[in-house]
């Protein structure tokens, strides 16, 4: 009935794999390509910061304090005369690291738990469902604050937790529930499908079925979930910074907004503008790609017309 269904029919008719097809369709839309480029630029900047190539000297004053944006200072300067432009670039590292590692943690917890719960049913399922229902019933913000307090100043495998590591650990450890629930539901649907039956019939081990058959079939959900959750992770970093639990000693967009909150009344708007612009641009790009990914990958939308 729909255009999506119609074109997917056509595309499948050409016999491409789901992923190759999705990729091709993403690239065929100008807006999506532009968004992908934006994301790639952000990632490059973040990697550049890690490599010490970009914004390495962010902490050095470049001019007088509170300079307006100009040709000389780009986005202006902050309360210590540091370049807002460099801080914004540096912020990409923090935000992307937080979002990426938090996603990774939440996937590492959510995906196996969800898959196991969905596949095994029985008491294992009950246990995992109980776990995520419980975690879910504690309001997210309270959980995040509590975790942030608990983790602050602790060490993990001899590595001291502070600043950024706390932020991504907190977000990761508290945000796996949604993914876990999603995967469990999907695996429940898949476990009785023919291909799983078949695998079972010719004697695959359970771990092999889960790893080799079920998980690849639900993996696209992880990607979609990831692309859409990325945005909320970046926002979480902003909120944690406001509550004083965020990154310290390095500029992040959250920290910049926190600074700007007070500077606005000096008429110093550029720090807020720079950080909001960076967040906005990345969010917009991620949203567009996330939506496109979902359209391209979600089989629910690929049910044909005829």
């Amino acid at each position, binding site marked *: *009935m*729909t*255009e999506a269904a*119609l*074109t997917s*029919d*056509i*595309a499948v*008719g*050409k*016999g491409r794999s789901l992923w190759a097809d999705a990729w091709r*369709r993403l690239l*065929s*839309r100008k807006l999506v390509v532009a968004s992908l480029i934006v994301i790639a630029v952000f990632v490059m900047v973040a990697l550049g910061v890690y490599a010490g190539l970009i914004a390495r000297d962010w902490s050095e004053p470049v001019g007088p304090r509170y300079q307006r944006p100009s040709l000389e200072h780009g986005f202006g300067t902050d309360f210590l005369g540091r370049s807002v432009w460099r801080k914004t670039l540096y912020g990409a590292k923090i935000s992307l690291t937080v979002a990426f590692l938090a996603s990774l943690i939440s996937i590492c917890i959510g995906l196996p738990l969800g898959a196991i719960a969905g596949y095994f049913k029985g008491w294992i399922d009950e246990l995992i469902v109980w776990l995520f229902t419980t975690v879910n019933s504690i309001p997210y913000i309270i959980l995040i604050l509590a975790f942030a307090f608990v983790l602050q100043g602790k060490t993990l495998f001899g590595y001291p937790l502070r600043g950024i590591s706390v932020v991504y650990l907190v977000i990761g450890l508290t945000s796996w529930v949604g993914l876990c629930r999603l995967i469990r539901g999907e695996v429940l649907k898949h476990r009785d499908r023919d291909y799983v039956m078949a695998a079972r019939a010719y004697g695959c081990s359970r771990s092999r079925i889960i790893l080799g058959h079920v998980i690849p079939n639900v993996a696209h959900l992880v990607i979609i979930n990831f692309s859409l959750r990325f945005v909320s992770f970046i926002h979480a970093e902003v909120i944690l910074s406001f509550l004083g639990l965020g990154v310290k000693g390095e500029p992040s967009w959250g920290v910049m907004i926190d600074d700007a909150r007070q500077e606005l009344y000096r008429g110093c708007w550029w720090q807020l503008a720079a950080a909001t612009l960076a967040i906005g641009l990345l969010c917009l790009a991620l949203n567009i790609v996330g939506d496109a990914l979902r359209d391209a990958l979600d089989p629910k939308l690929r049910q*044909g*017309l*005829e």
Partner: protein
Amino acid sequence: MNDLLQIRGLCTEFRTEDGLVRAVDGVSWQVNPGRTLGIVGESGCGKSVSALSVMGLIPKPSGEIVGGQVWFKGQDLLKLTERQIREIRGNEIAMIFQEPMTSLNPVFTVGNQIVEAIKLHQKLRTRDAWDLAVESLQRVGVPSAAERVYAYPHQLSGGMRQRVMIAMALSCHPAVLIADEPTTALDVTIQAQILELLRRLQAGERMALVLITHDLAVIAQIAHTVAVMYASRIVEYTSVEALFDQPLHPYTQGLFRSLPRLGQKKRRLDAIGGTVPNPLAFPSGCKFHPRCPLGCDDKRCQSVEPNLRLIRPGHVLACFKAAGYEDSPPCDIPTQAPTEVSNG
């Protein structure tokens, strides 16, 4: 134009991310009261889209009817306003769909959904509309219809749901019923029941029926005339007898060869070689030529697309290789049906 429903030269296009797709390309057919037109073809050949175009249900803005006319009772439906066409839709032309499982709204009772259709087109009190709904359910053979009106779709079996769909479609006594693969999703026994039901109702009401299917067996059971579609076009259009007697188009012949026949001992069924062409990149010339067993090396087949010609009375065809094609006049609808066999 004395025909009840006639479409002429219909072209429908879809804008997709990959480009423009012409899903229906110059299709014409007609159907008259008490008659059944079967449209047959593989998935994606445009048979459903042509039906949806008639109903004005092409999803906008990606889909658009770019040419042709749809004549119904002397007026061109494509020139009507949305409001006017809604008057006709569901009232004079009704449609049922392939998936009885999902085509009913899961959160309303079936009665509610039938009553909605009735009240939309007839000025009736709610109570009378409900009575009518029960009656129409009885008519399609739903047992204990008085109770079933209060059932939700998920409480009914697939066959029952299709009966509900038919009851809903027929509740306003439409002049034309378009059935889009009404039996595909059903068990074989249920299929037969539903087809029988459709035939009975059609005969009783002198309704025109357009049956869309990929199943020649279904066509054989119920249709009077048959249009064979391939790659957005009609390639052969004739009476059911003529078609089953002597299919002329190599594609139709291929369809028949892939059909299992009783009493015929054959090691395996023939399938048509190759795949359905991509509508974004249809082959030049005859769209069937890459798969055609007769002549994929023929220059003309590769470069020029054959149009439909009246190859003999009541039989139109688009194939250069058919005997007598060159001398036949262009014609898109078999004007004179040679035999009319009653479907008693």
